[in-house]
Structures are given as structure tokens and as C-alpha cells.
């Protein structure tokens, strides 16, 4: 049985439908991310699980128990807030020990457990600091320690890394994953950063405008997005409007701007569709094997790879190529591009684009 089940969770603020019919279950020990653009209802979902917002309808079930009538302070969840929400007037030790104190744990045992969890987050030696005398990364660790020390069934993290600079953020991603696995705690993370979600999660739940769009492992979601929203939100992609002409069990035929493309088998009836093609799947080839040819319009060097924009008859295509130290086509050069048919993802036509 799943540890946490969200059943048709809905939250309305007046006219705003913040979360709509959200259903998801989270297994014991799993790390699940809610991923979506700002304002799509991630925080609201987390706040309902935490007990700070009351769902308009739907149910939250933790360990088989409906949380409807359980107040936030009795849910026993560990929460890390976006602002960290450390108590500024308490030392690290007092901050971390607060939850144990509320549970009536004796001072001696409390001190021991606080020391252990501070070791886990690599903060031993800073127990007597005040939060304002610490760096962003250290505060974040205190917040995680404070949430973990009560040994919660479920750890909730709301954009925990968004206040850190880019380099520290990458370090903390690995740290957070290590801590989560060492503590073995089931975790729900909220983020708008797709690379964070992919680096950390066992499964990602992609949200848009309060609705759950797709759930799956990071690989699944990246490779087999079911909508153009998901494919553009996770990583870079080329999205092309096309017409599905013919579908057979072996493959399909698409027409895009008058050019016929081979595609993978699809579960669609012939008609307007969208096609997604990852830039790293586009390869250089010679004129005979080319799917399309075009002119390089822009080229950016990113260190480990080159990012080029190519103007082709089917539209502007992004292409990324590993930097192997050799020369790359320059702007103005004519290039011949190819990809294998199964690397095209065929998606339902985006309704908003048709209108």
C-alpha cells in the first residue's frame, strides 16, 4: 500500500482554481517531485498535505489514515520551507531540538539526537550559532535537520534550493539526495527547476495550471513526454506543427511544412499533431542521407557542447553536439541533418496553438 495517497485533491481560492483533481500516490521511501512553472499550484498542494490549507474537495491519506480532521501539528510531517523559516532567536541546537521538545523528549536524549542529525547534515560544531551568522547553504541544512530530527513519515520540501546560488545549488542537490537516502525518508519536493527535479527524484509529477500532466521516472518523462508542455518544460526541444498522414504498426508518415518525415508508430488518428525532437538527437550527415538540409544561423559554445540554430524547410531546428575539440559548422555554412525515426515524439496538437 502506498504511504501517501492524494485522491482527487482540489483547491479553489475564490475564482482561482489552484489545484484541480490531483491524484497521486507515493510509495514508502520514494522521492517524488512536483514540477511545474510558478503559480501552477505546487505550494498549495504541499500546504494541503502539511495541513495549512484545507482542500476544497478530495482526500489526503497517509499510512491508510485520512488526514481530513488531523491538524497540522498532529500530522508529524517534516517540512522544509522555501525561506527555511528558522527561528531567528534560537541557536542551531535549539532550532533543531524544538520538535523533540514539543514531543516531550528528555533533554539528555534530545541533545544526542540533535547531535546525530547535525552530523548527518555535516553541521557538527555549529550547534551554538544563530541562524543569521550562517551562510545560505548552512541555513538550508539546519532546516533539513530540524525537519528530519522528529523522524517524520514524510518529508516535504518547498523549493528548498531556490535561494542558493547556482554552484551551491548543484552541491546541495547531491547532498539532499544523500541525506534523503541515508535517512530513508519518503520525500515530496516542490520545484520549478527541471534539472533539480531530474537530479533528485525517483519520480516526477509535472503540473500545469493546477492539473497533473504526467507522472513517471525522470527518464520516462524526458524520453516519452505525452504533451508538448511536458516536452518543452523538461529540457530543450524542437516542437514542430505537423500533419500525421499515415500510421502503420511499423511506423508513421508525417508532413511538416511540405516535407515528409518518417516517425515512430503512434496512437493517433491521421490529422494535425505536434512533433518533438530533442536537439541532442539531431546529427550531421552528408547530402545523400539528410532528412533536411539548412543553413546555420547561430552558434553558441557551452564548454562541453555546441548549441547551433539551423534554418531548415521544416523550421528552425536547435542542435547540440558534444565538444570533441574539432571544428563545428559556422554561421552561414550549409549543413545536412538526420535523425532516426523513433527519436521523433508525436504529441497531441496543442489546442492553445491552434486557436
Amino acid at each position: 500500500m502506498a504511504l501517501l495517497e492524494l485522491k482527487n485533491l482540489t483547491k479553489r481560492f475564490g475564482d482561482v482554481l489552484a489545484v484541480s483533481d490531483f491524484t497521486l500516490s507515493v510509495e514508502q521511501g520514494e522521492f517524488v517531485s512536483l514540477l511545474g512553472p510558478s503559480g501552477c499550484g505546487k505550494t498549495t498542494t504541499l500546504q494541503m498535505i502539511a495541513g495549512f490549507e484545507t482542500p476544497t474537495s478530495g482526500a489526503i491519506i497517509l499510512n491508510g489514515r485520512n488526514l481530513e480532521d488531523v491538524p497540522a501539528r498532529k500530522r508529524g510531517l517534516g517540512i522544509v520551507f522555501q525561506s527555511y523559516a528558522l527561528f531567528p532567536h534560537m541557536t542551531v541546537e535549539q532550532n533543531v531540538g524544538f520538535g523533540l521538545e514539543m514531543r516531550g523528549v528528555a533533554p539528555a536524549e534530545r541533545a544526542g539526537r540533535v547531535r546525530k542529525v547535525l552530523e548527518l547534515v555535516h553541521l557538527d560544531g555549529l550547534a551554538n550559532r544563530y541562524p543569521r551568522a550562517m551562510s545560505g547553504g548552512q541555513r538550508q541544512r539546519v532546516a533539513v535537520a530540524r525537519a528530519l530530527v522528529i523522524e517524520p513519515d514524510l518529508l516535504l520540501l518547498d523549493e528548498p534550493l531556490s535561494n542558493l546560488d547556482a554552484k551551491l545549488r548543484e552541491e546541495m542537490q547531491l547532498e539532499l539526495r544523500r541525506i534523503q537516502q541515508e535517512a530513508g525518508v519518503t520525500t515530496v519536493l516542490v520545484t520549478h527547476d527541471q534539472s533539480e527535479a531530474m537530479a533528485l527524484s525517483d519520480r516526477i509529477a509535472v503540473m500545469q495550471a493546477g492539473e497533473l500532466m504526467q507522472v513517471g521516472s525522470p527518464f520516462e518523462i524526458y524520453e516519452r513526454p505525452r504533451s508538448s508542455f511536458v516536452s518543452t518544460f523538461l529540457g530543450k526541444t524542437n516542437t514542430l506543427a505537423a500533419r500525421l498522414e499515415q500510421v502503420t504498426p511499423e511506423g508513421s508518415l508525417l508532413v511538416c511544412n511540405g516535407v515528409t518525415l518518417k516517425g515512430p508508430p503512434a496512437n493517433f488518428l491521421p490529422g494535425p499533431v505536434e512533433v518533438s525532437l530533442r536537439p541532442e538527437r539531431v546529427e550531421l550527415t552528408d547530402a545523400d542521407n539528410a532528412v533536411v538540409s539548412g543553413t546555420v544561423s547561430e552558434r553558441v559554445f557551452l564548454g562541453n557542447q555546441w548549441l547551433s540554430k539551423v534554418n531548415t524547410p521544416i523550421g528552425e531546428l536547435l542542435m547540440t553536439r558534444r565538444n570533441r575539440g574539432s571544428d563545428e559548422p559556422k554561421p552561414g555554412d550549409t549543413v545536412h541533418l538526420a535523425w532516426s525515426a523513433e527519436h521523433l515524439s508525436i504529441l497531441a496538437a496543442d489546442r492553445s496553438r491552434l486557436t
Partner: protein
Amino acid sequence: MNRQSAAKPWLLSAPALTLFLALLLTPLVMTFVLSFNSFNFYGGIKNTHDFGNYLDVLSDSFFYEIFARTFLIALATTVVCVILGVPEAYIMFRMKPFWRSTLFLVILGPLLISVVVRTLGWQILLGNKGLINSGLMNIGLISRPFRMMYSSPGVVIAMTHVMIPFMILAVWASLQRQDPATEQAAESLGAGPLTVFFRVVLPQVIPGILSGSLLVFSMSASAFATPAIIGGRRLKVASTTVYDEFMGTLNWPLGAAIAVILLVSVLIIMLAWNRLMERRYSGAFG
């Protein structure tokens, strides 16, 4: 920065500065000078310069009693303002916007009415035949009226009403500075509403309570209208004594000396309080 732009702030603030100097500093300096002059009933004010008035005040237990009463009333008013104002500010802070602005109007509205009018209103409530006493006697809770008019408690009650908006505004400012998620954090860790208030909210609004207390204390110590009306002629405080010296006995130099002593002692108390609290809380607040 070049010369011209360095002069600009001074030029721009010159009108306000002039007004400030003319209207505040001049009378203050003149009062200070006046306090060293001497006075007798036949010759009036003599332009001497000695500490005679200060010696008179500091050697007379009558004045000690007045100053003690002044500061006790100010202290009591401050304490009552903290006890009532802090929870009130917090409750308002947690209210829905509509009720919050309604209550703000209720609390700040009285500031628009003259202190004298308000205090006369309190007189109607507090008198021996006033609303409170007759009410309590009618329901049989007391047999003889409580003496509230012309007593220190009465002054404290009326003064609290005048001063509490300042405490609420000061606490309000620090409530808005604190991270609302700290309350949620405490709640998620198992704290009940009272624990959240006393362990998380209250310590974070202490800077606001301190500044509010300074404001309320100094304003109460120098308040005139409320002690004059509720305290009457016999329950003297420093400011009413100054008034009596100036307008009654016409001993302006002695009145000036009392005013200077009041000013200096309020300043000393405020500075000491500030230093004490800065040292106490420098660890946790930046």
C-alpha cells in the same frame, strides 16, 4: 560626490531644519536658561545664574513624591500597554483583511479626537457616580463606589487608552518583518497555538515591544491633559506641577527647573533601557 551634490541635501532640508530650530530648540534653550534664574514674590524673576532651583527641587520630598508618581504611572501605563497591546496586535495580524482594517479604524480612530474630549469621556465612565461604578453597584458586585477619578489607577486606565495605539503600531511593524513561515514551522513540529505565540512570535517581536515601550513610557511621563483632568489638582505629576508653577505661583524659574529635570531623567531612563536591551538581544537580532 562633488561639492554641489553634497550641499543639496542640506539645502533641501533647510526649511524644515529652520522650522525645527526655531520652534523646538529655541523654547528648549530658553527654558534651560530660565531654570538658572531666581524668583521671589516681590521682585519677580531675577537674571541670576545658579543652581538654586535645582537644589530646592532635589532637597524637597514633596517633589520626590511627584516624580515617583510620574514615573510609576508611566511605568504602569507601559506595562498595561504591553500586556494588552501585544496580543491585540497579534490577533489583528491573524485576522481576515476586512476585520483587520475595521479594527485598525477602531484603534486609531480615537487619535483623531482631542485628548481633552476623550479624557472628559473617561471622566463620565470613571466617576463615583459614573457608568462603571453605578453599573457594578446595580448588579450588586460592590456596595460602595470604587474610587477611580482623582487616583493613579484612573490616570493609568485613561492614559492606556491614549497610548495603546502607539504600542500596537510598533508591534505591528515587527510582526510584518517576521517570516510568517516560522509559525507554520513551529506548528508542523508539534507546537500548539499558545506555544507558537510565546516561543516563536513573542521573541521575534521583542524589538517592536521595546521601541513601543520607549515611546509609551516617555509620552506618559510627560503627558499633561490626562493627569490634569483625571488626576485633578491634588494628584500631581511632573507636568502638572510645571503648569502650576508657571500659571499659579508664577515661579517660572522653578517650573523650568522641574521641566528640565523631567526631560533629563526621561532621557536617561530611555538611553539606559535602550543600552540594556541592545546588549541583551544583540545575539539574536541583527
